[in-house]
């Protein structure tokens, strides 16, 4: 599942960054607490959060996350888009709730496993 796939699965829109990476997302971290996100040791995560602030992007950059999805159609600030573009972090906006987004991503992972 690439970032481009994530955009489709979550009815989302790519708002900043490059969404054409062929790398596959390895895991989803659904969290609004950035210190928790920093505890993760893998660098192929997708950050799913309601935190529509620069800090979500900066945290994703620090842990080398593959992208950030802001759910519930939270309004995104221009500075957040700029930080995402500057740091090269793909930023996706989705109208789904955190729960629905998790369910769809989980189903997509299961479908991938089944081939």
């Amino acid at each position, binding site marked *: 599942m690439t970032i481009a796939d994530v955009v489709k699965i979550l009815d989302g*829109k790519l708002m900043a960054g490059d969404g054409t990476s062929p790398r596959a997302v390895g895991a989803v971290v659904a969290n609004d607490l950035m*210190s928790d996100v920093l505890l993760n040791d893998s660098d192929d995560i997708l950050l799913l959060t309601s*935190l529509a*602030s620069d800090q979500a992007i*900066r945290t994703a950059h620090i842990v080398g996350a593959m992208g950030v999805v802001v759910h519930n159609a939270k309004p995104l600030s221009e500075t957040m*888009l700029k930080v995402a573009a500057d740091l090269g972090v793909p930023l996706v906006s989705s109208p789904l709730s955190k729960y629905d987004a998790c369910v769809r991503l989980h189903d997509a992972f299961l479908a991938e496993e089944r081939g």
Partner: protein
Amino acid sequence: MAGEYTPTILQGQQTSDDEILANMPLDTKALGGDSSVIIMELLQRFKVRDVMKRQIISVARNASLREAQRLMRENRISGLPVCEDGRLYGIVSVNDIINALDNGWIEDTCESHMASNLVVLEAGMPLSFALRYFNNYTYGRFPVLDADRKLVGIISQRDVMRALLYELSVEIRKLERKTSNNVLEHATNERYFRREWAVVHNDLSRAGHAANDIKGILRERKVDRSVARRVAVAAYELEINICIHSHGGVLVMLISDDTVTITAKDRGPGISDIEWACRDGTSTANDWIRSMGFGAGMGLSNSKRVSDAFDIQSEVGKFTKVTCTFNLTKPAASEQ
């Protein structure tokens, strides 16, 4: 799928300190790499009260606009506060006088034509707030009120620039003396690389930029990916800590042949129980900080967890200094 989803983008964000620096009439880059650090320090250290003019020339509400015009002409000022017993009621500007002359109401009272919907600054605000106001509004000056809402001064862009230019020249002289004596200050030194970032209290719009820079520098220098990540995590947590808990400070990175050291030093308030502060989940953060995704009490423990060596010193009311050291390992074969 239902109709196409249209995300919302918030317009009119508050000016960031980066934009303030970019808009300053000084060529700060010409001053050397630490110049923005110096300016950020000055903007935070200086309060509006340090820069404002305290000598206030004002008129009463029932004074005529002609009287206001005379006072403005004699004192060569372009705006006059309308004030009685320290209470500010409005401002008469040159434009108000021109309109009065044009329309024949120059003998009317100031109260009847003054601007009364005012934007004001407080004397205790950092100078960075004043610069934001000048960037966000078109006014040439702002009245300054004290904690009791009494008018205590007037601040103009010229006052800010004069103070900054003077203090900058003092700071640059200090910096020149320091760099000539300290070989570690040179970022181009082959054995050592040192860089310093100012971290401003409560400025969450900038918090994290130093850690992002640090990660970029480490990747450029081909430091092992996992080590770079651990250094960046510690730097980020410490940067956020300075931003939300201290009165401001600096984050310093020193890279030598075999270690990377991150030092975070702030100017207080200090930690009374260091052991408690280093435990997971202990925090003094407020709701505002939590709403920004931090303040869960993981900062110091996270920094300690990712470091190869960790040291913390603090004195209540004075400072906290945290040093995280990381051993450099050779890049894994897959990353070479």
